[in-house]
């Protein structure tokens, strides 16, 4: 496919001139405003709620409580877990009314909703609601939650353990471990983080009594996925729910699921007969937007005397927070399980998972959703094994890569990897980063009193296969010959308006400006998956190609009629239909204009394809320099070499890598959601306490493409949305470990804050680790 590269994104103009339309920008005539009373404690029984004082406040129209949630029957959230656990047990799903009824289980849980004539009036009245609690002990870590005698969150979840699952071959692993020449062990934690897209969560809901249907304006990652969840939560049929999403201010997985506020607003809009709008604050966000990660992994890697991997075992403790989100449990199990072998040939694998509930914000998919966590565990184990066995780190990896002739490679767990070039990615990254020249830089840094280290990761991901069985794309042609492409995925910064339209325009040989994209138009019923799991370019983007190809074939007989030829005698190239001999031609635009009188336009096309997981992979190399006097780390250089398959737009790929790596660096150096262990209070509840990355954290990234086109979809894309997070966590941690080793510091868990680094260096002076 010829890929012209537009210099500027199609969506930019409105966004840089203030004409974007995010959810808070939408208003409906006659709308009311909602505010939520949230739990101010981590675990308590609700003894009584008195909403009367709030109802007497000026401007207040109604107050809704858990009783209304029970009346509506909005008490069971969808959970997408699709397989059974140990001994065939199903995941235990705690009840979760959209407004709490008998108990609260995390700071920030929705208890009551005030609806008033203005947002301020609603907010003011919240404080007037009287509530009596009976406090209970809280648990905020998985270890505490699983301890004997721990406080119980839910009656139907004994021991706070809602699911146990195992995958792989325990016996084969045991046998391999028994004969191993060496076993490397390391327990790592991927911390709980707050995804924090910059647009706060919010929704506006209106109800039409005549048709018993709802219009829901909300940020989303794709309308079908969200609509399905609304239906599952509320029992309202999908055809009675219209989801409206325009611009979305970042998502990162956090917007993939339905939230309690959605359900509560639906209750209010129906009961009051007026639209009801809620726009959350950042404080609301920290204590109620789904958090991400929060997985402890105890890993063991067995090697033979030649330094070849013969088995690996991982024990996962997955923190899910106080309730199950739609996506958190399945993504934190399936993704690590699929990728337990990493990029290596490991004949025997076993993983055991425990899904645990704690008195914290529920956890959902966050950029990578289990993929960064398993990559982090594997890549730190491999580095540690290299150190223990004194084998050069890149050499140990090279020795164990799945070889080029082994593809398609069926892993010992559940995946079948498509062709990749792990060794080629590694070599390109090593060369770009001047890996072999590093020791001179370490020495030079030492001369400046700094600790310099280098680290690499070689990683693979399985992109989201999707919840719906296929992705559909519609193309409509107007009287002027311009095209509108319809999809039901949703960009929240990924630039679909630029890339999807370029796929269609380039296939048709038309100027990009002739094609526009309309995502998630509630008036268009299309089947399709949401944007998540790095899947949209490989999934929906490839169906754009299928649709454009189909449009050409569909239009050839129409062109043949105009040209007075047999359809078989018509070719299409460069925006023109022409006879085989090239004598007769009609342009795409001319044909579209000639046929404009027919309704619907006969060139309109609906195409579909089933696109499962693709397998992006890559090698990232980070170089860090630590000031041992302050513990402050600087990322001295960063190289990313990604095989994301065919690159449709390098600028956008680069942007995805920049953003992903910076989120990884944020998690590695400063971000962490912290709860007070004794009280369960959230200590990182604002941008003043939570370590969001700022300008200068990552100063430059050398982004290199190493494409091995995918054969699993029509355009060869593999996906790139999450590789930045997945590869950067281990690359940065391995660099930090390398830098700190000469100071006598061994394993540290993220985040490498200046305080932690400095104290570790001081402690090592007294008691060096081995």
């Amino acid at each position, binding site marked *: 496919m010829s890929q012209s590269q537009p210099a500027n994104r199609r969506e930019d103009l409105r966004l*840089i001139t203030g004409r974007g339309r*995010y959810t808070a920008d939408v208003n409906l005539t006659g709308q009311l405003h909602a505010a939520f009373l949230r739990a101010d404690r981590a675990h308590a029984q609700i003894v009584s709620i008195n909403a009367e004082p709030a109802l007497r406040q000026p401007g207040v129209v109604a107050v809704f409580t858990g009783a209304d949630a029970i009346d509506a029957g909005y008490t069971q959230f969808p959970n997408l877990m699709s397989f059974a656990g140990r001994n065939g047990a199903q995941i235990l799903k705690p009840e979760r009314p959209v407004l709490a009824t008998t108990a609260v289980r995390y700071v920030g849980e929705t208890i009551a909703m005030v609806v008033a004539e203005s947002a*301020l009036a609603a907010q003011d009245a919240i404080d007037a609601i009287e509530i009596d609690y009976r406090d209970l002990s809280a648990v905020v870590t998985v270890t505490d939650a699983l301890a004997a005698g721990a406080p119980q969150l839910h009656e139907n979840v004994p021991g706070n353990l809602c699911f146990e699952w195992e995958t792989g071959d325990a016996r084969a692993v045991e046998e391999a471990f028994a004969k191993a020449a060496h076993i490397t062990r390391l327990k790592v934690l991927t911390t709980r983080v707050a*995804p924090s897209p*910059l*647009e706060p969560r919010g929704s506006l809901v209106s109800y039409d009594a005549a048709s018993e249907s709802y219009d829901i304006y909300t940020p989303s990652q794709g309308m079908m996925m969200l609509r399905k969840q609304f239906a599952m939560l509320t029992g309202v049929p999908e055809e009675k729910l219209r989801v409206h999403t325009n611009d979305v201010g970042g998502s990162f997985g956090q917007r993939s699921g339905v939230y309690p506020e959605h359900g509560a607003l639906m209750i209010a809009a129906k009961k009051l007969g007026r639209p009801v709008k809620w726009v959350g604050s950042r404080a609301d966000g920290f204590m109620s937007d789904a958090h991400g990660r929060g997985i402890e992994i105890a890993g063991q890697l067995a090697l033979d005397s030649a330094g070849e991997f013969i088995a690996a075992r991982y024990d996962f403790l997955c923190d899910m927070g106080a309730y199950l989100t739609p996506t958190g449990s399945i993504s934190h199990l399936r993704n690590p399980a699929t990728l337990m072998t990493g990029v290596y040939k490991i004949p025997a694998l076993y993983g055991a998972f425990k899904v645990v509930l704690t008195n914290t914000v529920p956890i959902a998919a966050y950029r990578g959703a289990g993929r960064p966590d398993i990559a982090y565990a594997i890549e730190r184990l491999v580095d540690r094994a290299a150190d223990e066995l004194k084998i050069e780190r890149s050499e140990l990896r090279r020795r164990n890569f799945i070889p080029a002739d082994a593809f398609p490679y069926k892993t010992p767990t559940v995946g079948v990897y498509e062709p990749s070039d792990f060794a080629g990615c590694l070599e390109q990254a090593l060369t770009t980063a001047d890996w072999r020249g590093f020791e001179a830089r370490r020495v030079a840094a030492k001369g400046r009193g700094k600790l310099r280290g280098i680290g690499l990761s070689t990683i693979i991901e399985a992109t989201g296969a999707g919840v719906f069985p296929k992705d559909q794309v519609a193309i409509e042609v107007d009287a002027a010959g311009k095209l509108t492409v319809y999809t039901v995925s949703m960009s929240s*910064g990924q630039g679909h308006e630029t890339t999807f339209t370029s796929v269609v325009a380039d296939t048709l040989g038309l100027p990009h400006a002739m094609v526009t994209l309309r995502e998630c138009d509630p008036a268009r019923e299309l089947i399709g998956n949401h944007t998540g799991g790095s899947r949209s370019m490989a999934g929906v983007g490839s169906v754009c190609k299928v649709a454009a190809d189909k449009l050409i074939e569909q239009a050839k007989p129409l062109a043949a009629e105009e040209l007075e030829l047999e359809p078989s005698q018509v070719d299409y190239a460069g925006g023109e239909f022409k006879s085989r001999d090239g004598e007769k031609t009609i342009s795409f635009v001319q044909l579209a204009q000639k046929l404009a009188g027919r309704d619907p336009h006969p060139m309109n096309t609906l195409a579909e394809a089933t696109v499962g997981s693709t397998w992006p992979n890559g090698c990232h190399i980070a170089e860090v320099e630590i000031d041992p006097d302050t513990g402050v780390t600087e990322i001295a250089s960063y190289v990313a070499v990604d095989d994301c398959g065919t690159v449709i737009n390098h600028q956008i790929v680069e942007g995805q890598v920049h*953003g992903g790596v910076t989120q990884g660096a944020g998690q590695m150096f400063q971000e962490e959601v912290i709860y007070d262990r004794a009280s369960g209070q959230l200590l990182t509840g604002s941008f003043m306490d939570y370590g969001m990355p*700022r300008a*200068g954290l990552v100063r430059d990234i050398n982004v290199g493409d190493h494409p091995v086109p995918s054969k699993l979809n029509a355009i060869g894309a593999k996906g790139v949305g999450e590789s930045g997070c997945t590869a950067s966590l281990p690359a940065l941690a391995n660099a930090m470990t390398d830098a700190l080793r000469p100071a006598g510091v061994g394993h540290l868990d993220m985040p490498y804050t200046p305080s932690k680094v400095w104290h570790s260096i001081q402690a090592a002076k007294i008691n060096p680790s081995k």
Partner: protein
Amino acid sequence: MTKIELTVNGTKHSREVEDRTLLVDVLRDQLRLTGTHIGCDTSQCGCCTVHIDGRAVKSCTVLAVQADGTDIVTIEGLSNGDQLHPVQQSFTDCHALQCGFCTPGMIMAISAFLKDNPQPTDEEIYHGLEGNLCRCTGYINIVKAVKRSAELMK
């Protein structure tokens, strides 16, 4: 309620506001200038940055009554007709935005910053961006856009 008069993007407005009303709420809810965004409640994110009498200010941290009599420019008023402001042009040229939510505040902050410091060093740019958060871009292309803006504004 207090009566205030504001000039916003060259147009005079007179409004009755509560004493506690924030400037950003007047801009968004009363004047329907929704290009100015609200991304936090602690003055950290900078999404709400506007120019008041030529200075970049976080409009979530200013009472509307404090802005009485001032001349305000929001993202909607930054370009000169169809001619984009150099910072706007640089943001699209450098792919310095993805979701676009932080972008208006970034552009307003940077356009004022470059008036004070027309040729900033990298360190000065990082410092100048301290009050604006972006979750999508990793800032690398935003820093590039600042440098390109400085070139265009020479």
